[in-house]
């Protein structure tokens, strides 16, 4: 055992080279994935901090300690930072980068240099976003509706430019992943043997590729409105504010599927590996990812039922929106069915996966109320919407991220995390999340509008509960990240395959060598073919 440990310690890994240059100019997809991971986590904390501040203000009616102007800046930055720098890139660019090539049996992505370029574009966009604060922090909401955002000036221009550059990063990554999956699969690795995480990233990349350019042009035009005074979206200059909304949501609706599809892929992995059972309904799940990606492109108008569209448009968009519920429901049934007759371990990743299923169910079901023409008129732009999207973006996507992080931590660093503290972090995340956001549904139904710095005192009780929940989430997130950082440096040595997974990443050493595989494998079994001993 001692000898074996010594041998393991001597193995070459992708972490060996320690110079700064070897990180900043790396072509190794695993290192690029880690750089994305840490950059996003920093902004996760910043965006979360902003929420803690304005939730504290909102705990009581009347002004507590921040002015409405500051509140509006905080909710704008909270949304913009968390959406563009955290949720969209997190699972695909961090974990996707690390694991996609390994899962298809390749040594790297199709275009490693473009991958590095993607990261630096991402970093540039992030820096520009911060730089824009020097010109007056934006307060337009992350949705930038015109004409409010059309005449703000240099700060909106710089933010538009920043997000445009972030979009370029997203597009190049999507392109890289698609070519990788098509061209670099190891011999024997047919589409039917791909892990569902790969299917999910593939579907996400398709959406990234096709939707992001439209955001690019929309924000470019918005930036030009602010810089040069062109008036496409400002009625005072002959423009149309509703046109902005169409162009904006044409991207931003598919964007939410960029945020959730990778999470779906993660859950398929976690549920099957931690119940040591094949995923139920592989082909239905793979097909549903593609179906959701496709349907996601034709429903954007459901954000605009009270914005000035014709009734025919309203009806068509509502009808089409309902179709996205079917493939989504199918996934939920399949994950649940995977548990049947499994051998379920209550590891932290499994807890996050189970939490995901419950929370995503609520998030998805509340979407039905918003797709509904009758109820949406009442619920649009109220706290109900805020509750809905936090359940799917945080309760689902962020939970999937944490589950994935702990699931793959042993592989990325060759170390195990502290199970007890990770579970404590999960507990605060789960309880805190429900306490913070379930009240939002009730508030919205009662008529409480969103983006309000203050509210009539009659709404107070639920706001207070929500703020307490926010603090719990902060505790849970900090504990979880502390467990992660501690494990990275001081965790106990983990075996190469602590969970008994069957996809290719579990066949190579932990941490992996730079070239991933000593020899490119010839694949004969599927990723969920768990074997009897």
């Amino acid at each position, binding site marked *: 055992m001692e000898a074996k440990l010594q041998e393991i310690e001597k193995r070459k890994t992708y972490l060996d080279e320690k110079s700064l240059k070897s990180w900043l100019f790396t072509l190794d997809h695993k290192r690029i994935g880690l750089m994305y991971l840490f950059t996003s986590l920093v902004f996760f904390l910043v965006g979360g901090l902003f929420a803690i501040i304005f939730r504290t203000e909102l705990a009581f009616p*009347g002004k507590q300690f921040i002015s*409405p102007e500051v509140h*509006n800046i905080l909710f704008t930055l909270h949304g913009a930072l968390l959406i563009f720098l955290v949720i969209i890139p997190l699972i695909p660019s961090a974990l996707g980068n690390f694991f996609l090539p390994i899962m298809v049996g390749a040594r790297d992505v199709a275009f490693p240099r473009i991958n590095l370029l993607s990261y630096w574009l991402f970093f540039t966009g992030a820096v520009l976003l911060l730089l824009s604060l020097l010109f007056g922090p934006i307060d337009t*909401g992350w949705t930038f509706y015109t*004409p*409010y955002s059309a005449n703000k000036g240099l700060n909106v221009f710089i933010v538009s430019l920043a997000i445009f550059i972030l979009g370029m990063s997203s597009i190049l990554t999507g392109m890289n992943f698609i070519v990788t999956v098509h061209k670099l699969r190891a011999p024997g690795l047919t589409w039917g043997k791909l892990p569902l995480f790969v299917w999910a990233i593939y579907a996400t990349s398709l959406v990234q590729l096709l939707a992001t350019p439209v955001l690019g042009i929309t924000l470019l035009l918005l930036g030009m409105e602010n810089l040069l005074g062109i008036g496409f979206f400002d009625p*005072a200059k002959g423009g149309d*504010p509703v046109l902005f909304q169409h162009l904006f949501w044409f991207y931003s609706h598919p964007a939410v599927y960029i945020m959730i599809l990778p999470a779906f892929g993660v859950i398929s992995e976690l549920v099957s590996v931690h119940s*040591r*059972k094949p995923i*139920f*309904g592989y082909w239905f799940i793979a097909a549903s990812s593609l179906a959701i990606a496709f349907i996601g492109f034709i429903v954007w108008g459901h954000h605009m039922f*009270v*914005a*000035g569209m014709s009734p025919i448009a309203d*009806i068509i968009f*509502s009808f089409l929106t309902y*179709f996205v*519920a*079917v493939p989504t429901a*199918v996934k939920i049934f399949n994950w*649940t069915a995977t*548990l*049947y*007759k*499994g*051998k*379920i371990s*209550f590891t932290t990743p499994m807890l996050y996966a*189970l939490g995901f*299923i419950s929370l995503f*169910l*609520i998030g998805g*079901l509340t979407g*039905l*109320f918003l*797709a*509904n*023409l*009758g*109820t*949406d*008129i*009442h619920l*649009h*732009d*109220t706290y109900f919407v805020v509750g809905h999207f936090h359940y799917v973006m945080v309760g689902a996507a962020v939970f999937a991220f944490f589950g994935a992080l702990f699931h793959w931590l042993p592989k990325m660093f060759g170390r195990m995390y502290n199970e007890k503290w990770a579970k404590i972090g999960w507990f605060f995340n789960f309880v805190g999340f429900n306490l913070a956001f379930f009240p939002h549904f*009730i508030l919205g*139904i*009662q*008529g409480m*509008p*969103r983006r*309000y*710095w*203050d509210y*009539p*005192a*009659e709404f107070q009780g639920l706001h207070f509960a929500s703020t307490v929940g926010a603090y719990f989430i902060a505790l849970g997130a900090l504990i979880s990240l502390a467990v992660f950082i501690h494990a990275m440096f001081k965790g106990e040595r983990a075996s190469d395959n602590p969970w008994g997974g069957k996809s290719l990443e579990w066949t190579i050493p932990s941490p992996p060598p730079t070239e991933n595989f000593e020899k490119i494998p010839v694949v004969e079994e599927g990723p969920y073919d*768990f074997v009897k001993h």
Partner: protein
Amino acid sequence: MWISALLPERASDYAVHVDTAFWITFFLSLIFFVIINFAILVFIIKYRRRKGDEEPGAPISHNTPLEIVWTIIPTILIFVIFWFGFKAYAEIKWMREKPKYEIRITARQWGWTAEYSDGKKLITGTIKDDRFITTKDFQPIIFVPAGEPVQLVLTSQDVIHSFYVPEFRVKYDAIPGRYTKIWFQAKKPGEYEVFCTEYCGAWHSRMPAKVLALPPKQFERFLKLPPDKFNNTLANMPIDSIYAVLNLSDEEFEKWSGAQEKLLLAMSPAERGKLISQRLCQSCHSFDGSQGIGPTWKGLFGSERILADGKRVLADENYIRESILQPGEKIVKGFQPVMPSFQGQLSEEQISDIIEFIKSLK
């Protein structure tokens, strides 16, 4: 306190259709939520891995008939939910009869203006207090007859706002450069809160209003009042006083009406100005010298003002008029440039009245 436990009171005729769609969606969702969570709970208990067991679970990878069934069932159910939503939407969008009355609503940063076809006008403003507010602080923006269909034509003079009456279940954006329409029929008399529901800047959360639905007799009285009399009296009064006046007996009302004539004629411009100022200006400008968001009016007229850029100006009639219409032009030192413009909200006569009132505050 009007807050309901969940859905607000159904105050409009079509609200019941919205609530039907809501509850059907809710119960179908609840059924699925319970089934899935129950299944998960049962499975994780029954199929938990026992200590030392390294064997995999059963190699069940799919069941095509089952998967097809549970694809078809949700597909059918979503059509059901869609249908009830469409029904409610149709009720909200398309009126069964022509509206009896049409009111023009203009949104602005940060308040509302309502105009009737005969010239009656109501304006609500921004509640800029630091202290907390309740729905009792909301001012009426429209008077409508209970039991009759009313149409609102919405627009904005600056950015996108949205007119939302939760108790009616109706909402639509007020968009600059175009007109949008909503209609409703209040089931019974009452006060129904209005919220701006499209983020419009700093005071988005503090431009609330109220719909005042009146019984037929009271609404008749409102209709018959000549516009300028209404604009100078009821339009500026607190809700309790409005009800008090509208509920007077015929004789008393005649007396009040006549008295209003006389009162109005007798009322000095300063007194008329006071009424308007109490409603639209007092939240920022005190009349008694106390500190506020804007400079106090006590002793303002005729004084020398020191502006933010150091210049000095005399606070005469022109200065005050400019401050009302183009408040950004001259900012007094020590104050923020946050005053909204009242261009288009106040008539020349009202502006003169306000100036006279300010003059009276020595």
